[in-house]
């Protein structure tokens, strides 16, 4: 698979480490979250067959975190974003 890095252009996926469902960006607030929320965050996954938004960490490159939209049935990648941009767009401060 080739991941089209927004800053570095097309890169071999072997340069990256797969870090799971992009929903992990939305970590519960440690001040207020219930045990149930932490359980769902840490352990439960949608695990869809089809389009999946997921985190890839460019360990063998610029060490940025990306949100990759990829089809889990065909392995086709349709969108690559910088994870920080995605988080900020969702209202996170950093």
């Amino acid at each position, binding site marked *: 698979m080739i991941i089209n890095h927004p800053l570095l252009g097309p890169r071999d*996926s072997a340069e990256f480490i797969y870090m799971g469902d992009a929903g992990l960006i939305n970590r519960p607030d440690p001040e207020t979250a219930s045990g149930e929320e932490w359980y769902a965050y840490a352990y439960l*996954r949608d*695990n869809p067959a089809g389009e*999946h938004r997921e985190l890839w960490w460019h360990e063998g490159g610029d060490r940025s975190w990306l949100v990759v939209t990829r089809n*889990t049935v065909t392995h086709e990648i349709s969108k690559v974003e910088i994870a920080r941009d995605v988080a900020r767009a969702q209202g996170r401060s950093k």
Partner: protein
Amino acid sequence: MRYSGFKVIKEALTGHRGWTPAWRDPEPQSHYDIVIIGGGGHGLATAHYLSKVYDEKRVAVLEKGWIGGGNVGRNTTIIRSNYLLDGNEPFYEMSLKLWEGLEQDLNYNAMISQRGIMNLIHSDAQRDAFVRRGNAMMLNGADAEYLNEDQIRKEYPFLNFDDARFPIKGGLAQRRGGTVRHDAVAWGFARSADSHGVDIIQNCEVQGFRIEGGVCKGVETSRGFVGAGKVGCAVAGNSGRLMAMAGMRLPIESHVLQAFVSEGLKPVLPGVITFGAGHFYVSQSDKGGLVFGGDLDGYNSYAQRGNLPVVEDVCEGGMAIMPMIGRARMLRMWGGIMDMSMDGSPIIDRTHIDGLYFNGGWCYGGFKATPASGYAFAHLLAKDEPHETATAYRIDRFRTGHMIDEKGMGNQPNLH
């Protein structure tokens, strides 16, 4: 029809005209006491033990394709019971014992070969860990044997003992481990279940559950509604997809694992070798091909094929530990979809929906578990309580903190 050596000779002399199909091809009935979803090893084993041991007579197995077309027909066929943790080891040891009597139980030649498995050791820390594991195995009635370098040199003289990074310093052997003809496991369980009255229904995809007032009443399939007193799900890599139809999210990710076979060779490799440090394991099939594999590709996938970086990684591992493998040509490679759980251990449990039961999270190690998984799932379905060897395989253990994490990797499924 019972199979025997005598029957084979008789058929050979009479032109093989007396063989009959090994199982029927029935139409689905409108209602069963128990419906099993998934005609893989685990679903078929469940049906066998339900009908033979627990005397359940109105049972069906629904399979979306053909039986044995999933992971049971795609794995590298290694059986063993070399686990560390209390939640696991009694279960896998029961499985190994069931394997030992399986061909007689099924009246089917599954080519079970206890040729032994050896985990290689390269450092003092690894030796400590493996000796500890061997002790845990023996405490649970399994066999384990520590071998030093000289003993391994006698059995496997062709290994690369003096590699600079991973010199071979010893090994943990389990002599009762080995390999099995995987397709025969699916067919043998299917034939036995069928002979005890189970309907095995192929080309029947489950497309939804009928759940009324928190009770599961049956399943919607590509061949119509099938009512059921109880529904047991055993669809391995498709667990997430199937249970989503019941509104459930699981502590599971689906990942692809690849396997490889070389051209056929004369016997060169007596047992199974695992080179965990180099992400490589290998055995030789009875046809002569070297059967080998390594790590998961590492990303969510439902495509039954992987990518080239892992091919390279596995072949490098093979060349590092067993350089002569480089003389063999690779014949075939393929992938299967693993139901990777969050702690690397399986689930055999009721769900919060009455009448709906779940078996899954087998990761890349569910083939060896096939008989015990079937036995324990049949026990749960018939008696509504967990089998004594499977009490730790609760679906809510991630909520309660009772993880069974052999490798201590935490909730990252691609590391288990």
